[in-house]
């Protein structure tokens, strides 16, 4: 079956695209989809704890099963509103990566 996968923020840059279509096996869950990307993109594996998954625009756990035609999104920590205090620290860390 096929699902649409959307990437945002830093995940989008790691994966190098905003979205793609992925073929997944019947019975696959969100966790297995995440792991398949994490294998291709080691930086994404490091973000597993902070990256939330959404299935059809709702936050979903890794154990949720996929269905054909689903829209899955990889959502790194959000930063809407105004400036966050942590920005500068993160920047220094990013520079050290």
């Amino acid at each position: 079956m096929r699902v649409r996968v959307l990437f945002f923020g830093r995940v989008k840059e790691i994966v190098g695209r905003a979205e793609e279509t992925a073929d997944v096996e019947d019975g696959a869950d969100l966790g297995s989809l995440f792991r398949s990307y994490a294998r291709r993109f080691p930086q994404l594996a490091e973000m597993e704890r902070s990256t939330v998954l959404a299935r059809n625009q709702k936050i979903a756990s890794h154990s949720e099963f996929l269905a054909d035609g689903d829209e899955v999104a990889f959502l790194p920590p959000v930063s809407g509103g105004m400036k966050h205090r942590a920005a500068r620290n993160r920047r220094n860390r990013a520079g050290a990566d």
Partner: protein
Amino acid sequence: MQHETAEIVRAPIDVAALAAGLRRGEDGAVVVFEGIVRNGSGGCPTLYLEYEGYEAMALEQMRAIAGEARARWPIDRVAIVHRLGRLEIGETSIAIVVTSAHRAPAFDACRHAIDRVKKSVAIWKKEYFADGAVWVEGEVMQK
């Protein structure tokens, strides 16, 4: 104007028009919060920010936050407007307007709404400096 408004825009937010559209004769208080793009406090100045969103999801989350505020406090109307795209220092990235008969619930609801937006709306921003750019990662997204 609905009791709960959530909007994502790409042009400057006209907060005065937004507030004027919400207020009614039974309101005694309007509380407005504006989040604005500010300069960093460190040595390297911010040039500008780029906001992006998972728009369908973000709108739904903003609507949910507005609804939650109205369920929890005796207020009249709530509008949450977030701007995406490139924003310069001093520009408004988000405006939240709450109208109410009395001021205390308007303050509480407005403050709650911005706290929730920062934690649970699918919007990201990238900060641009003279020597590069970085995704600002705030909070792990919550329901």
